């Protein structure tokens, strides 16, 4: 159980690093970073929590609080980074099909 959760966390962290290298765009990279890095860290934290609970007989509530905290804050930070990149006019990848916010972006560049 402990081994499984910690391994899943480490594997997802490796996947995050690979995604940061290989993906073409700021937005896809923030997608990779916010999602899989969160899951990786949560897996590692649950592994440590189970280890202290089952092997050391020590209930550590700080780890539960840390899990909840990361679960709340990490997606919000990913959203804010992507939003700031879009507002400052970062280019999208070549494979982009739809850009629904283009109208708003044109309004900001030349306001009537």
């Amino acid at each position, binding site marked *: 159980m402990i081994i499984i959760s910690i391994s899943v966390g480490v594997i997802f962290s490796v996947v995050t690093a690979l995604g940061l290298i290989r993906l073409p765009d700021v937005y896809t990279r923030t997608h990779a970073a916010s999602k899989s890095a969160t899951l990786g860290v949560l897996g590692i934290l649950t592994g440590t929590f189970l280890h202290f609970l089952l092997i050391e007989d020590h209930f550590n509530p700080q780890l539960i609080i840390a899990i909840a905290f990361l679960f*709340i*804050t990490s997606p919000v930070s990913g959203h804010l980074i992507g939003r700031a990149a879009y507002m400052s006019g970062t280019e999208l990848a070549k494979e982009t099909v739809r850009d629904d916010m283009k109208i708003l972006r044109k*309004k900001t560049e030349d306001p009537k």
Partner: protein
Amino acid sequence: MKTNDVMLQTATKVVIFIILLFAVHIFFTGHYTPGGGFVGGLLTASAIVLLMLAFDLDTVKKILPLNYVAMVAVGLLIALGTAGASIVFDVPFFTHAYDYFDLPLFGKTSLHSAALFDLGVYLVVVGVTMTIIQTIGEDE
């Protein structure tokens, strides 16, 4: 474009309680585990800075009408008073005393006068950090 901070503000409203509770916890457990006045003060200041990021400076001033310079003075006075109370009991300077009391809610607890000194450190750290950040943030 009009900025839309709904996500940041909603997340801040939830998260700030966790940060403040953790700051109080780490302040009170500083005697036996890692923590203490300095780290607790920095955590509290970071919670207030998060409020300032999500909302406005004026809104935070309306919510918390604190004079941070006076807070530094009060913290220094508490620390000096804790150190100077040893003069009354005819022991060397900065000697701390501890004893076990039977409180009505907690039962047998040990109260130490070093916690009061830590409270002074806490107030000084919060006051200094918030003074620096407010003076930088208000420059326009």
